[in-house]
């Protein structure tokens, strides 16, 4: 398990959990980041800018600041399985 910032772009990931306070968790959940969803890191901003995350389950794109992205714990989906 890694956090979202440690993931490579364009690799399908599964959300395992979200660390952090209620405020951020609620916000992320409301915007469609649920445990078990498949997401992908689309691109990263320069100079520690935000990351662009595509949620493949709900087909939405959300820009997340790095501080928030590193609270999203993901696992790499093994496509062979």
């Amino acid at each position, binding site marked *: 398990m890694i956090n979202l910032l440690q993931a490579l772009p364009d690799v399908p990931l599964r959300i395992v959990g979200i660390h952090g306070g209620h405020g951020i968790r609620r*916000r992320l959940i409301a915007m469609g980041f649920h445990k078990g969803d498949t997401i992908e890191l689309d691109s990263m901003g320069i100079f520690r800018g935000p990351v662009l995350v595509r949620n493949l389950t709900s087909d939405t794109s959300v*820009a997340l600041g790095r501080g928030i992205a590193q609270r999203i714990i993901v696992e790499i989906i093994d496509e062979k399985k």
Partner: protein
Amino acid sequence: MTKKNRFPDVVFIGQPNCGKSTLFNAIAGLKADTSNFPGTSVKHTHSKVNIEGSIVNIIDLPGTYSLNPSDPAEKVALSHLFHEKPDLIVNVVDASILGRSLELTLELMELDYPMIIALNMIDLAKKKGVEIDVKKMEELLGVPVIPTIATRGQGIKEMLEAALQTLGKRPSVTPIKWSRDVEQRVEELANLLPEDIPPVYNKRFTAIHMIEANRLFFDKVLREINPKLKEDLDRVRHELEEMHNAPAYEVISAERHHLALKIFEESSRVFRGKRVKFQDRLDDVIMHPFFGYVILLAVFFGFFLIIFKIGNPLEELLLEPLTSLRNFLMLKLGANVFSYLIDGLLAGIGGGVAIVLPYFVPLILLMSFLEDVGYLARAGFLMDTFMHKIGLHGKSVSPFILGFGCNVPAIVSTRILESRRDRIITSLLIPFIPCSARTTIILALVAFYLGPIWAFGFYTFNILLIAILGRVISLFFRTPSPGLILEIPSLKMPSLKNMLKKTIFQMKSFIKFAWPILIAGSIVLGFLQYLHFDRFINLVLSPLVEKGLGLPQELGVTLVFGFLRKELSLIMMLQALGVNYKDLMTSGFHRIHQLFRSLCVHSGPPLERDGEKNSLTLCRIEYGRGGDLEFDCPLDFRKVTRGFTLFLPKPPWLRRIPQGEIGRHGLPRTSLCP
């Protein structure tokens, strides 16, 4: 229950950027501001419409992701839903992201209230390769579903008919039940609700929201009023948490999520289209770490260039006949009260036509293009890094960019920001953004005489100034910004009709509100001039105007009016100085300086209201002092608020015009250099 108004209330509710406002506009005409940026309507908009003989009061609420609000705009939506019970809910759903949008639908169904669904943007869904079986969806949800394409006005008639039908019958919606273990706990709590606690909508809904409620606040209150119920609630939450190994509110939202996905899967088929690939590739370039910024710069530079290219020749064209007419009339009528009044009237009318419209219209049109395409959210993504440098994040980019239109709605729109800290800092900075009125000045005066590069430079300098101020203001807030969470909507082909509608809407408000004031103010000024009363006011104000601001004494009256209405300043300056429009240029920077000031006051009241109670709202930042005629203003920017002082060096690129050169611009020295 008695209703305040006798027309049935129909509310439009949906997630941000699902097209509620566009749909609302298509029905109600030009009322709500729409764009392809999440969170455009931050206040609700009412409109009475006549649907086949029955009058209905329709209400456009700000977008909300769920019924658990996390920013003030969402709270607006909820407080309306809870306090003024509507007669019908129209849930606007973005068909292109149906899976997520249905979560709010399921939550709304828990209200157990008459409801219909407008399945909007089905064209976009089709492009994305999503085909939705509307009948099946209706069957699964038990709610009428009407496919619509709001931008093209499709399906609106059918939707209104369905609304009327539902209003007549008022069938209740049956909420879809969740998995048994969760449902049992909810039911248990609902049954335990004592009679003296009035349920919101119904007992089940109340129980669900008690479980989901923000603990810090709600639990404390509940412990005070009903300790027994608090114990029951804790037990239910605890059981849910034990069973699912997650906080109770996550258990509930996971139930909705799974249900929404299930309904989505059962009612639609997904094919991956080629066009999506193209869009993805386009997005890769737009948000590329290098090319993204090149495009961003090019977009903004092009933006000014286009406005300049359109505005400049148009302005010349419109201004010529007006100036000659005024000169002609002055000669013909002589210096009497009549000629002064007519001159004032002409200056007012002409100011609106020849100065504001050539720049204002293209500016608004281009702005709405950027909004509708969905570029603003992408600009927010790109700018986030830099916004962090001034203590904010990318989501503040949208209020900032709105500020280029007008500062006042921009300050209101800071409600989309989740944290109070971000709201305060953003709304303190917005008054320094050159709004369309000030942009007009920059374009009309600076670009007209010095060229677009100078105007661009001035803008850049202005933005730099905002950055420095942001940095300073954020020093007062120790808590760090929570960080960016911003939805990036898919790129959309903007509809020209929508853009024109928006431009006309903005123009209408200019013609209706600003222009009459402008004309009236101009006439009053003409009259004052005739009475020589302006000299008296100017004399009284001269310690402030001359010594305090370093402006010519003649501008005293203008300044007073400028406080009332910023657009007025430019026109009034023409009159006050008694100079030809061209001559104004040499002291153009003065004007901008002065507008900076008048706007600061102009934006004062909403700032205090929306930025919440904060002593910082009293802050006024003053530019420049010193009595020199040229270019002294924004650069010796010294006095700042709260006792700390900033000294900024004068940037070398801004040249002070030597005294000798002033004459070349035909500036009547006597009137400007007292």
